[in-house]
């Protein structure tokens, strides 16, 4: 009993201590760095991309000093819960499954998912057509959820990063890539490696898996931070800062309707 009491007090002390120090410190933002054009790493180690600029603009709007923290995709939510950072700005789609673990701001963009395959491939986007086909995608994404739900007979090939999927698609190890259409267009189709490849089929969307767009994830206890982000996103839209960043990367407004 006594030990239990001591442990509880100790645990609470650590928790409260952590809360107090978090308020004084910088805002730490988790980003990925291997998902062009939303985030990538230059050869000198600096982070670039739409997500990165949006994160920096949001911090400026909120008047907070931000530190970007790189994290591999499949550990993104666990690292947020373990307080390695306080928010995720990494093109993370707002889905029901993720909402069980974290809270999301309003969406900051929304683009559809699509298949990419070699030009002239006979890939049919139907349950029958994808049966046994090797479809490459990034592990832990909404696309993994979508494929397992809608096309359970396809053979899924799971990668840690989207860049690795494109690499294997280019050399023919997989029949198709399934990912966000913008990520596929700018990260692959518009590059040298993507010559001879194109989109197959139309926009793919499933509300349960894909959700309503990409948002900023925060811990459930940080509701104030979430509201701050919502206000900042709206402000960036109103002031035209968002549109300016958008124009650097895309020829249409990816904010979506």
């Amino acid at each position, binding site marked *: 009993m006594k030990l239990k009491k001591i442990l509880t007090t100790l645990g609470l002390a650590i928790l409260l201590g952590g809360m107090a120090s978090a308020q004084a410190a910088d805002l730490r933002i988790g980003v990925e760095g291997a998902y062009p054009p939303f985030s990538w790493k230059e050869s000198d180690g600096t982070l670039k991309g739409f997500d990165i600029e949006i994160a920096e603009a949001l911090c400026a709007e909120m008047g907070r000093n931000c530190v970007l923290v790189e994290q591999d995709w499949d550990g993104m*939510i666990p690292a947020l819960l373990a307080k390695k950072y306080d928010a995720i700005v990494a093109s993370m789609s707002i889905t029901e499954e993720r909402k069980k*673990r974290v809270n999301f701001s309003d969406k900051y963009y929304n683009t559809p998912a699509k298949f990419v395959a070699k030009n002239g491939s006979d890939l049919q986007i139907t349950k029958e057509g994808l049966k046994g086909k090797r479809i490459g995608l990034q*592990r832990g994404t909404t696309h993994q959820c979508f494929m397992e739900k809608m096309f359970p007979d396809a053979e899924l090939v799971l990668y840690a990063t989207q860049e690795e999927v494109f690499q294997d698609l280019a050399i023919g190890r997989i029949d198709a890539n399934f990912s966000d259409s913008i990520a596929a267009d700018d990260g692959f189709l518009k590059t040298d490696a993507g010559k001879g490849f194109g989109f197959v089929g139309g926009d793919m969307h499933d509300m349960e898996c894909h959700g309503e767009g990409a948002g900023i994830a925060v811990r459930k206890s940080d509701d104030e931070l979430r509201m701050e982000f919502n206000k900042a996103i709206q402000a960036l839209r109103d002031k035209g800062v968002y549109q300016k960043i958008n124009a650097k990367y895309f020829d249409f407004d990816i904010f979506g309707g």
Partner: protein
Amino acid sequence: MGEAIIQFLETWSPLDVVLIAQNFDRFLLGALVTLQLTGLALLIGGALAVPLAIIRAGKNPYLNAPVWAFTYTFRGTPLLVQTYLIYYGLGQFEAVRESFLWGPILSQAWWCALIAFSLNTAAYTTELLRGAIVTTSRGEVEAALACGFSAAQRMRRIVLPSAFRRALPAYSNEVIFMLHGSVVASTITIQDLLGVGRWLNGRYYLAYEGFITAAVLYLIIVLIISRGFRWWESRWLRHLYPQNAVETKPKKGLASFRF
């Protein structure tokens, strides 16, 4: 106060046991892939290691140098790097992609992993066996010489059987290292034991359920392997144990010495 408790629960929620149970068959399939890759790599690597170790223990510099370079390279670089070079590296060359090896072998992640693992364990086993060969007791070799054995006969009948036995305890470590090293397969899309764990984490956005399940299964496999080796050693190394099998209570001093 209440908020702190809610936060505590959300941050440190217990294992999602239901999800693990629902997907346990996948974990068993993953374990099978792990065992298959590890077992085959050990077989191929072991078969390569015997002739290479004999060369390394010999004195021919023209044969010795390339084998030394091979073992040094594969023991001096991480297994992950070797696997990446074979899987992602070789695929970048047009010539490799157009060769007959591409379709059936080098385009397949499974074969790339098997090649990397086999060469890696071959390098370690070569050096392990070389050590056992060169430390063969002079007396045994001299006895064989006195009986008129040729060099090949000495190697086959005296040196190798003795070296295999003495290398056995160290080899059990190599087997366990190889098993653990095989997790590298999950980084090149193979659904091995860790691959299934990462799949589960990815599918349900979990932090550690997949890892813990995989870890427990690895522990069980290692337990079986080490038990197996202990049994094997008790048979093969019996002649090296102290000769006091009748005594039930170990005496103080030398007689109680065991390894």
